């Protein structure tokens, strides 16, 4: 009886852990970087979930007639950006970057680009979901700048790169 109870408890715990891992999917945790904001001269911290994306869709449709932008946004379920510019170099540590890299070292993630220079690192990781692109992580680290971009959902890298100048500018 006790053995059966223990086995069921263990199975339940295992199910909840794997469920949580599955639910996390292409979303990575970036909260550990929040402490860098106090050291940074300039901080960009953007959290856009699917509800906010839906909310903004109508507004953006009215401001931009670019169907590629609409198409790109339609596939996205969340965008999370943390970007810090520092007045002095070495304001962040390798541990800050490694904490992000550890999260994309699991199954499902694959590094498609990695460029490492002198005090410079740029990496792009893609998350595959049933053989489809389900998200991406960009790590861009320079001596006095650190940017992490995490997009959850279907993203076409070529479209994203090409879209830059066509993204409408929205005044404050």
């Amino acid at each position, binding site marked *: 009886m006790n053995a059966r109870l223990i086995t069921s408890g263990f199975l339940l715990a295992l199910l909840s852990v794997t469920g949580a891992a599955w639910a996390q999917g292409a979303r990575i945790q970036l909260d550990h970087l929040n402490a860098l904001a106090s050291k940074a001269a300039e901080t*960009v911290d*953007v*959290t*856009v979930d699917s509800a*906010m*994306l839906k*909310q*903004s869709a*109508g*507004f*953006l449709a009215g*401001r931009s007639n670019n169907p590629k*932008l609409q198409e*790109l*946004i339609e596939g996205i379920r969340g*965008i*999370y*950006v943390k*970007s810090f510019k520092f007045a002095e170099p070495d304001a962040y540590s390798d541990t800050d970057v490694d904490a992000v890299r550890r999260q994309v070292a699991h199954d499902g993630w694959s590094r498609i*680009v990695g*460029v490492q220079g002198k005090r410079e690192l*740029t990496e*792009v990781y893609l998350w595959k979901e049933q053989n489809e692109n389900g998200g991406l992580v*960009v790590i*861009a680290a320079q001596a006095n700048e650190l*940017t992490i*971009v995490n*997009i959850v959902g279907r993203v076409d*890298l070529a479209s*994203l*790169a*090409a*879209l*830059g100048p066509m*993204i*409408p*500018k*929205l005044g*404050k």
Partner: protein
Amino acid sequence: MNLEHELQHALKRKSPASGFDERVLRRIASGGTIQAPPPPPARWARRALPVAASLALAIGGSYYVQQQRHKQAQAEQAARDVVLALRIASEKVSAVQVKVQEISHHERQVDY
């Protein structure tokens, strides 16, 4: 002549049915009341009703407009965040593309 006779007959005093006084007394004893018809609304009440309705409409309307403005502001903020995030992502990805192209171009030159 006939009409006069009919009128006299209609207005003739009639006694109530037998037991009427007993029934009335019994009802009073049992606590029964006879409801008086409601008084007609006062003049101020007749005037206050449309004023109250207009006030409610104005308050409701202004609340609705405020809600719409709040939703609009939220959508604008969300759109700004989306655009900023996409711009940063696009900038970083295209920078990587440029670097990769530079590296491959350099490697090709070294091969030759």
